[in-house]
């Protein structure tokens, strides 16, 4: 069997679906394949998105996938000193929602289908070769092996990012840039506020942080991410310790376990080559400090879809034609990532004691708005070490 299409998208997460939707809307013949039997499950994500991000993408929040609205943040240092940033005390909130990825991802895929994209589930891509200016992807579905011939392939295959490598892009993630994450969805979580995201810093999660993201009532995603090269314990072992020792979760019960990698090395230098582009986690479109990548992945997907469709119209799938994609992603998404990467390196360098003393100062500081950059701006003011390392950036 041979299937022919203009644009083949491998992976039906939010970035893939966004690419599929926009390529289809712009007139390309689109096929998206997904190796799993259910789009969106299992989630590998803490499920936080910003309101501004959804607005920018033109996505109307739906009660089907919004589980809670967030209006504050609680930052907790290793000795339990907490800093509250809420809409009551801080102007210009830049807050968001905790969503249900299982539902959200499926809805994004449905949007792509409604725009005209075909979708094949339970379909695994196994390899790729170029032939006469096209790409042949070897695929397998329910025991049946077949080829897909495409003009452009968009790799949306997440942290695995094999499609890019098959195409000649350097998408392998360095160990120091791959966070290893583990998360329970829990019930009986005793949050101080069910509308605030909680972040825990220090030894609980070397190289990353732990989080409690409320999903309505006493339900929350409780997770953490670590850089494996900085710890002897696995992410899962860190999670067990955290849940046992954290006052918010010590009486909670897990109803789901999620694990996975999060590439926090920033957008890759090269995300397009002849016939092949990468989007979302596969292209490193993740905020290196927060690890968040739903919105940025979908923005990347939108740009990739538009450019792929335009390239199909021009009948030019060369690296030169697709290079516009890398340029636009860097301008529209990756611009801030460099400074967040330096901030991550800085946070990684702080001892528990330093984090505690920063938290103490933060408690007495007035913030103008709730955002990552505002936090870092204040941090630079209160910490000489931060000023030294990040002063020019914030």
């Amino acid at each position: 069997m041979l299937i022919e299409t203009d644009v083949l998208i491998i992976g039906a997460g939010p970035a893939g679906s966004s690419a599929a939707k926009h390529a289809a809307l712009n007139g390309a013949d689109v096929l998206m394949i997904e190796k799993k039997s259910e789009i969106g499950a299992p989630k590998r994500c803490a499920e936080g998105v910003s309101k501004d991000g959804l607005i920018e993408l033109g996505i109307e929040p739906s009660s089907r996938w919004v589980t809670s609205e967030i209006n504050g943040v609680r930052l907790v240092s290793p000795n339990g000193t907490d800093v509250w940033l809420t809409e009551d005390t801080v102007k210009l909130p830049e807050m968001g929602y905790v969503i249900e990825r299982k539902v959200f991802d499926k809805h994004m895929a449905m949007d792509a289908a409604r725009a005209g994209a075909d979708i094949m589930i339970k379909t695994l891509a196994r390899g790729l070769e170029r032939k006469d200016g096209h790409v042949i992807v070897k695929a397998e579905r329910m025991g049946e092996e077949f080829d897909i011939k495409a003009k452009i392939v968009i790799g949306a295959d997440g942290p695995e990012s094999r499609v890019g490598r098959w195409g000649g892009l350097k998408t392998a993630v360095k160990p120091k840039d791959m966070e290893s994450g583990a998360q329970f969805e829990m019930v009986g979580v005793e949050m101080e506020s069910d509308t605030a995201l909680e972040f825990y810093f220090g030894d609980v999660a070397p190289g990353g942080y732990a989080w409690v993201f409320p999903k309505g009532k006493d339900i929350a995603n409780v997770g953490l991410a670590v850089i494996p090269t900085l710890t002897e314990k696995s992410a899962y072992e860190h999670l067990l310790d955290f849940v046992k020792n954290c006052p918010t979760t010590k009486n909670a019960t897990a109803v789901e376990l999620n694990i996975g990698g999060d590439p926090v090395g920033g957008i890759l230098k090269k995300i397009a080559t002849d016939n092949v582009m990468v989007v979302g986690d596969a292209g490193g479109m993740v905020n290196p400090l927060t690890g968040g990548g739903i919105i940025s992945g979908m923005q990347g997907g939108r740009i990739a879809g538009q450019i792929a469709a335009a390239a199909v119209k021009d009948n030019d799938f060369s690296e030169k034609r697709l290079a516009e994609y890398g340029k636009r992603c860097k301008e529209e998404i990756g611009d801030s990532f460099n400074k967040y990467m330096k901030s991550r390196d800085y946070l990684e360098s702080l001892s528990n004691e330093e984090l505690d003393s920063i938290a103490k100062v933060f408690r007495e500081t007035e913030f103008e708005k709730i955002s990552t950059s505002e936090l870092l701006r204040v941090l630079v003011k209160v910490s000489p070490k931060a000023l030294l390392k990040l002063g020019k950036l914030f």
Partner: protein
Amino acid sequence: MKIVREWCMYCGECAGVCPRCLIEVGEATITFDESSCKDCEICVQACPVRALIKEE
């Protein structure tokens, strides 16, 4: 040579860090191209649930 323990959740993190792109992860399958493996063990270290063990 790797052993995949039965609690592997097929998250694919190992595939992402494998410098030689030798690991294929399906919905509920994981396959190593062991002929080209150089035993760097980066995959073993990255696994969030320690499901990969090096077999001597």
